[in-house]
């Protein structure tokens, strides 16, 4: 059982995980000087979708996401849907790992083969998840101050280069461009369905910390975008692959504090690790709850083999990934996040109303 505060922090770190270095460039390119407004709109949508899930979960108290299809649709169809969710979580984990190794290869460690990063992260993640959800929650709670304070401290150190003029003119350009960018809804907000695997384990209800976490992550993203635009300007930030990294690279206090970008790399690594923890937990719990095996560690070994393979197979190169992200993320995510829960909800309502009618007929 994890506490509400731990779940709240877990939600924030899960959303910020890969977003902070994969999406910033694309958001600035789409939104221009007003990109800092985009997380509020997308966060609002994320909260609506979260409310929709919470409604579904209210009909099945104490059950996690993959147990609901089993309850609603019976064993065969439910198992099929749960296996689909398992593959979905594996896909997401593969993306996370591949983003990580692209980042490390592109910035600090260009020679290391990608599988080294994948396997190392997976080994530690599987060990952590094997200890249970409490370990995940507690670990996140302890680590969050070590992420939060250095990140903002380093960004504040860079404010010697701040220029308010980079943010002007405000709200002048076309707001429609912001609203048309639907892939921001998909990644990262719709991917938070992986956190619903932890819903039954949160003491005193998971709804409120989940929605609060969504909102806080949006505020955090918006502030980060605001800082990036003010420090780099739209022209550079929309072209650099890792704007946060470049901002920190250019920090130079006096002549002494220079080249401190290693701090940001470590912070991003840990954030990604937490996102990976949630996804590995989701995948392994799916296996455990659907098939109910009696041993534990062989399945972690199988997961490691599968996920390290998927990390290398998930996309060809960052350019193809960018294209996929813009066109298909929303459709792909909404299948798992909107369509299937909607069908489950409809089935549940139908069952409830028919159940009441048959009861009334019988009594």
């Amino acid at each position, binding site marked *: 059982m994890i506490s509400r505060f731990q779940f709240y922090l877990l939600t924030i770190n899960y959303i910020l995980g890969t977003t902070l270095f994969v999406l910033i460039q694309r958001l600035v390119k789409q939104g221009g000087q007003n990109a800092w407004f985009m997380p509020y709109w997308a966060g609002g949508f994320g909260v609506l979708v979260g409310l929709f899930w919470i409604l579904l979960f209210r009909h099945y108290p104490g059950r996690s996401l993959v147990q609901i299809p089993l309850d609603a649709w019976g064993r065969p169809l439910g198992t099929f849907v749960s296996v689909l969710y398992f593959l979905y979580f594996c896909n997401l984990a593969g993306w996370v790992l591949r983003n990580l190794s692209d980042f490390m290869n592109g910035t600090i460690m260009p020679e*290391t083969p990608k599988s*080294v990063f994948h396997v190392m992260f997976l080994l530690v993640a599987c060990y952590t998840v094997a200890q249970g959800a409490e370990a995940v929650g507690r670990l996140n709670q302890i680590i969050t101050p070590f992420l939060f304070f250095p990140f903002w401290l380093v960004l504040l150190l860079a404010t010697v280069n701040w220029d308010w003029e980079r943010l002007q003119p405000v709200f002048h350009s076309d707001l429609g461009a912001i609203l048309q960018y639907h892939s921001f809804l998909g990644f990262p907000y719709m991917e938070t369905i992986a956190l619903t695997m932890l819903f039954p384990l949160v003491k005193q209800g998971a709804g409120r910390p989940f929605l609060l976490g969504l909102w806080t992550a949006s505020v955090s993203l918006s502030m980060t975008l605001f800082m990036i635009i003010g420090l780099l300007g739209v022209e550079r930030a929309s072209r650099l692959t890792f704007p946060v990294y470049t901002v920190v690279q250019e920090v130079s206090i006096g002549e002494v504090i220079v080249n401190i970008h290693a701090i940001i790399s470590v912070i991003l690594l840990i954030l990604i690790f937490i996102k990976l923890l949630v996804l590995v937990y989701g995948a392994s719990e799916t296996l455990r709850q659907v098939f109910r095996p009696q041993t534990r560690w062989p399945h972690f070994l199988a997961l490691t083999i599968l996920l390290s393979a998927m990390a290398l197979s998930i996309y060809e190169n960052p350019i193809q990934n960018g294209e996929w992200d813009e066109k298909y993320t929303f459709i792909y995510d909404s299948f798992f996040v909107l369509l299937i829960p909607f069908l489950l909800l409809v089935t549940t309502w139908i069952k409830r109303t028919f159940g009441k009618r048959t009861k009334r007929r019988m009594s």
Partner: protein
Amino acid sequence: MTYRYAAGVFILMMFTALLTACWDKTEMNELALVSMVGVDIDPDSGKKTVYYQIINPLSGTSARGTPGGEQAPVYTYEISGSSFGEIKSTIYKMLPRKLFIAHSKVLLVSQRAAGQGIRDIVNFIEMQPNGRSSVPMLIVDGSISQVMKTFTPLERVPSDAIDSRLKLLIRNSLLAGKHIKVNDVIERMEKSDTIVLPMIAATSENPSSNSGETAADIDANQNNFIIGGGAVFRDYRMVGKLNDAQLVWYHLLNGDEGRHVRRFQVEGKQVSMELRLVRMQRDVFRQSDQPSVRIRLDLQLSATWANEFVPRSRAEVKRLEGNLNRIIENESLAFYQMTRERGWDLLRIRDLLRKQMPNHPDIDQAAKNAKVTIEVATRLLRTGSMNQPYEGTG
């Protein structure tokens, strides 16, 4: 139980293999620390030549008395190729250590390369993961090869010499500004703005290539380079030069706060006054469909360096201030007229209009036709150790 042991040992072995950073480790003495980079492009053949000035770790006080004589503080390697990317591979034909450019302090670009366009150079720096765009960029007036192979007296590493000179110039004069870094160039060029970068030239025809000789020579102007003048850039290309006098007005009208001493001719007398900008306000008014820009400068004067003449009474101070107001207004307006004739938007009027009047249909035309008025208000606040200079008797 043995199963667990075996699995544990296997995992530990994997950790040992995977945690040693086998692929990316580099020892410190395998690195070539670059302190200055110079770039030249041949206009006829398009060949790119890059000069890397590498710090010599063996030089310094601890190495005195080593056999073989004095060690040079830096070594300059020159390498050519058809593109900058190719140079990354071919540099190792000359360089015995791994190139590490994360600590470079200055970027020099030859004038002929600047005339052709620096966009390739800037793109190359931004694309490299280790390249820092926060280094200042200077344009070389003359032979870049000579400047890159010049030792400097007093400050042994030439890039440190340039860096500290720029800092001193920014504080103590209006001959250099803060926005001379590569990332400033990118920002301004991408907005179709202009930027002025400092220029550097060698002081003598044949500088010595022996650092011992340079260190022991009393004439500091002999083996050195001098920073002076400005190169005007528009659309990544150098379109003209400014001399020192024009540079002063350029920096003043763009809001730089260095303390600059200049000799003015006031009422038939020469007086060297120190100016410092305290506040600059730029306002845009619409006058019968033509925008007009009013620039108001508030300057602080100091008579510390005025060894020729110091005002005696408040009336004299007011007259001096009034005269200086007029002189500065006229000269800066003349500077603006000169830039307008040459088509250089050095006062960044277009940028100002873009921010204040974003809905104007044709910003470029409006910027060209804008009427600019400059109002200067000076105030004498400081005097030196003497309140009147010596006059002699005759």
